[in-house]
């Protein structure tokens, strides 16, 4: 029997065209202001900010040049494939000649709007995406012909059905346990289904040639990405926020151009290491952030506070799917056969991932190891464990991570916040007290 429930009547209530248009305009303006404010603040913190950063400033405008480019390419017949989290196989999208864009949303305004239909217990990343959809705020989501929604956490799982009222949704179910052959096999099947869907949408067969080309493109991007991350291990020639901005623009920029621009930036930064031309004092406490993704532009709240604090902190590295995890791991291919490449893509998007959706008797040990390694490599003085309310998986793993860090004698601070600007004063006090603590330790 056919369902009596009509598509379009499930979650989001009808809103008048004028209300939608008014809110969209209002949110867009406010977002443009936040983007400008963030960039101004980054410039202020780094007086000698190289002109090579300006490219990323431009791409960071979610309503600007990049949106324009994608719409033009779409009009010329290209397909746009959105994805809500990092489990989506970018290589397959690129191989089929489509444009990949991440569509998770970092707007505080739209989170508030999402409150109309989502209870506040729901993670604000989800509420914000729902709110953005209600008023067609997100250019990349609107441009998407289909959206890959990996069902990693409960929020994203339900988000997939809310978005289904508007968009073609392709779900992927990652196994929650990754360390057995069976999990890899399941994931491979998910991968093959997505591959077929991509081929159907684009009308382009994914072949040995175009897949190899796509993998190599991403490998080059990873190389540039790692080069930047490598530089960050040394003295501070770039602020954490600027590095985060570079990392995050890769989620919606043309990846080849992004690679080239990142390499150009790295050329300058490597020179600055030699010239000792630093973005901040070399003894600035080095902070690592781990936890909920911090999505441009509104979630720059905490990074801004850390790097503008008194005493100042340097975001040396992060363990987030909005940062270090985006491009760190390349697809590793032994032989360029179709089956080998597909296996390599499958493995990369499962085994390399440290998302807290994974579990085992030994917990999410890949994440624990990753954090421990980063602390040593990036000479981290203290860790800020960042969780937005409702982000249950990250919140739960804190107890374990804290024990590990205690044993390493690395201070960790649990910073819980919301998609709001109202708590900035309190956040500032917490962050500054933590940095004072780190500074006092360094003094010894």
């Amino acid at each position, binding site marked *: 029997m056919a369902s009596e429930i009509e598509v379009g009547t499930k979650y989001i209530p009808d809103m008048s065209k004028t209300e939608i248009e008014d809110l969209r305009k209002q949110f867009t303006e406010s977002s443009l202001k936040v983007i400008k404010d963030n960039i101004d603040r980054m410039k202020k913190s780094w007086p000698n900010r190289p002109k090579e950063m300006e490219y990323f400033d431009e791409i960071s405008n979610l309503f600007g040049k990049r949106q324009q480019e994608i719409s033009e390419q779409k009009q010329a017949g290209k397909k746009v494939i959105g994805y809500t989290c990092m489990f989506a196989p970018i290589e397959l999208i690129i191989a089929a000649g489509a444009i990949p864009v991440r569509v998770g949303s970092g707007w505080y305004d739209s989170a508030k709007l999402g409150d109309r239909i989502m209870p506040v217990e729901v993670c604000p990343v989800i509420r914000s995406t729902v709110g953005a959809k209600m008023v067609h705020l997100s250019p990349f989501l609107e441009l998407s012909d289909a959206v890959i929604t990996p069902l990693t956490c409960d929020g994203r799982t339900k988000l997939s059905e809310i978005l289904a009222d508007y968009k073609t949704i392709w779900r992927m179910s990652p196994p929650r346990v990754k360390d057995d052959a069976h999990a890899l096999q399941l994931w491979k099947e998910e991968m093959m289904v997505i591959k077929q869907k991509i081929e159907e949408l684009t009308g382009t067969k994914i072949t040995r040639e175009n897949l190899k080309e796509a993998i190599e493109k991403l490998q080059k991007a990873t190389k540039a990405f790692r080069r930047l991350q490598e530089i960050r291990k040394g003295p501070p020639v770039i602020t954490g926020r600027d590095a985060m901005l570079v990392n995050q623009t890769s989620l919606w920029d043309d990846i080849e151009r992004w690679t080239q621009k990142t390499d150009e930036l790295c050329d300058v930064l490597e020179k600055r290491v030699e010239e000792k031309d630093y973005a901040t004092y070399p003894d600035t406490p080095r902070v690592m952030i781990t936890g909920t993704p911090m999505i441009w532009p509104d979630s720059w709240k905490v990074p801004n506070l850390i790097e503008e604090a*008194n005493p100042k902190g340097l975001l040396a590295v992060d363990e987030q799917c909005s940062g270090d995890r985006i491009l760190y791991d390349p697809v590793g291919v032994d032989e360029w056969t179709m089956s080998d490449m597909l296996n390599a893509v499958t493995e990369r998007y499962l085994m390399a991932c440290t998302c807290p959706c994974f579990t085992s008797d030994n917990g999410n040990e890949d994440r624990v190891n990753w954090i421990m390694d980063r602390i040593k490599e990036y000479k981290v003085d203290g860790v800020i464990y960042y969780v937005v309310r409702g982000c249950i998986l990250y919140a739960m793993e804190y107890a374990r991570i804290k024990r590990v860090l205690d044993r390493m004698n690395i201070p960790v*601070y649990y910073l819980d916040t919301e998609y709001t600007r*109202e708590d900035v*004063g309190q956040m500032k*006090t*917490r962050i500054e007290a933590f940095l004072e*603590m780190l500074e006092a330790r360094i003094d010894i």
Partner: protein
Amino acid sequence: MESEKDKTEFWRWLEYHSVMPGKDWRKANVITAGVDVGSVGSKAVVMIDGEIYSWSVLRTGSNSSDSAKKALDWAMQDTGLSLKDFHYIVGTGYGRVNVPMANRAITEIACHAKGANYIWGPSVRTVLDVGGQDVKAIRCDDTGKVVSFLMNDKCAAGTGRGMEVIADLLKIPIEDVGKVSLSVTEEPEPVSSTCVVFAKTEAVGLLRKGWSKEKVLASYIRAMAIRMSELIEKVGCEKEFVITGGQSKNIGIVQRVENILGVKRLPVPNLETTGLDPASAGAIGAALFAKALYEKEKHR
């Protein structure tokens, strides 16, 4: 004297200031001050050579920098001191960035730990600072350095400001709320929410139900004490334990927190003879940091 009937502002607590007798700042080598602009109270402490010389505690007005100036002015009153005599001033508290005469700002978390270490000595390990709009549980080492800390949520739940609202609602002078809350023969159930807005509504409901003022007050204070105790338990309560901030004067909070945790706080020193005021622990810590920073910069 104002009669109970005429009194309208039950929340209004007494402001105070004083100078330690028998001390002469003109003979001192280093004169510093700590100015703690909290959300409810502003505190200033003047130190000469690392010892308390004078202090003031007053209500924070709508303008942080005015409150900071007023607090320090009041602490300098009748001493002959003027701003130019200070070698270093540290601002702290919620309004720390708006202390115009400060050479530097340091968070109240670091300052309360430092101040507690000064007031009670090196044995202090856990500090509960109950301020006007937030509660902080701080762990520190024997030098008063912060080892870890936790802070409550972003609202005035279970804090000094909440206490003021309830005092006003029940028409009980703020100085008496602690004592009055302990006059109940049996501890009532805690109110279900320490959120100021909800608690006020709930308190009105309880009064209508026929609860006595004392019982309603006890119920609210107990809820606050439970929240604070949870925060301390989360950060881990190691002895010695002390309470700082304005609510350290609220015996209703203090005794209940002690009962829940099964730990006694270290006793409060006599303010008049020692100048050691737990409510001003943040300002004391700030004045100490000021001295340390001055000396560090001088040696450079």
